[in-house]
């Protein structure tokens, strides 16, 4: 296809999209308008299922199937990254014993460029923020149905918190932590758990992913039926997915060197 033809095809497509988009957006309630027909229905449904955070109710209860799709987008992107960044021919992982490429300055920075030990203030900040960030992450997952947050946000916070070890220059500790729990398995368990909770509803004759558990009392930690369960499943999947994703990236820079006789 010549450049000219491609431009014509693009122009036609863009024009149709622009007209259809403007026509569709014209029917939406105005920006900052007071009446939101979908919004008030969603809040009513959330209150009926005793879920104070109506956003979580939409994500995990009223539109749980969409969230399932989102979760599998993350899983697939992690799998794709692992596939792309697998050990290629011509690359080899340095074994932990050969620390010959670094000017080892006591920071234990295996694979770090020489002299790259971070300043003390950065290391202190990293170690101080690590438990705080992990605590906030756990809180966000556990209270997703009550206050802003949920499995996705909490999962990202937890995975980010662990990587503060990298900021603190302690790559060995991060490496130990990363390889101890099998995050690949945990990710499958999290993503599969989400599907299993949805399929469990089928057993009692309800629709896939419908909220069949008892709803409990308003504002209790264990309430809102399946919403906190799905939050935890999503949290596990997101934490392990990001650990694998960031781990693969860091491994590329820090461990894998091209196989050649460097002096």
């Amino acid at each position, binding site marked *: 296809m010549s450049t000219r033809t491609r431009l014509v095809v693009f122009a036609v497509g863009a024009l149709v999209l622009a007209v259809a988009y403007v026509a569709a957006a014209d029917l939406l309630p105005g920006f*900052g308008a007071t009446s939101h027909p979908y919004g008030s229905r969603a809040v009513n449904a959330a209150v009926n299922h005793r879920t104070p*955070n109506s*956003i*979580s109710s939409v994500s995990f209860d009223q539109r749980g199937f969409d969230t399932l799709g989102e979760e599998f987008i993350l899983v697939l992107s992690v799998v794709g990254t692992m596939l792309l960044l697998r050990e290629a021919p011509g690359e080899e992982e340095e074994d932990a014993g050969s620390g010959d490429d670094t000017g080892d300055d006591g920071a234990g920075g295996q694979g770090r460029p020489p002299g790259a030990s971070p300043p003390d203030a950065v290391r202190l900040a990293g170690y101080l923020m690590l438990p705080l960030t992990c605590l906030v992450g756990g809180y*966000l997952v556990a209270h997703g149905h009550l206050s*802003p*947050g*949920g499995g*996705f*946000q909490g999962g*990202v*916070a937890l*995975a*980010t918190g662990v*990587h503060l070890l990298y900021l603190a220059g302690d790559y060995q500790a991060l490496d130990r932590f990363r390889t101890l729990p099998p995050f690949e398995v945990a990710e499958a368990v999290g993503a599969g758990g989400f599907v299993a909770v949805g399929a469990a509803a089928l057993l009692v004759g309800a629709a896939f992913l419908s909220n069949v558990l008892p709803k409990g009392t308003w504002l209790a930690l264990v309430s809102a039926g399946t919403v906190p369960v799905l939050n935890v499943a999503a949290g596990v999947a997101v934490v392990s997915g*990001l650990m694998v*994703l*960031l781990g693969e*990236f*860091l491994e*590329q*820079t820090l461990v894998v060197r*091209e196989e*050649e006789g*460097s002096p």
Partner: protein
Amino acid sequence: MTLLVDLVLVLVGAVGTAVVLQREATAQALVLAEFGLAFTVLALVLQAPDVALSLFLVGSTVVPLLVLVAVSKRQESNQQEAQK
């Protein structure tokens, strides 16, 4: 309230432009983190705390970190090429 939203929208536009204008990749990753922060403020003033959390965590930590790591790998490979 509307004035605040307008101001933050302009801020998002300005920081977004700054990301594009910064041509040095490492610095660009840091400006990208600032862009995530500006977007977080926008979600906050629009009273969307859940979205603000997602934007903050993904936009100003995870994505810039991935970009930084990828850039440093690229620069390292370039240095190795230059040494040969």
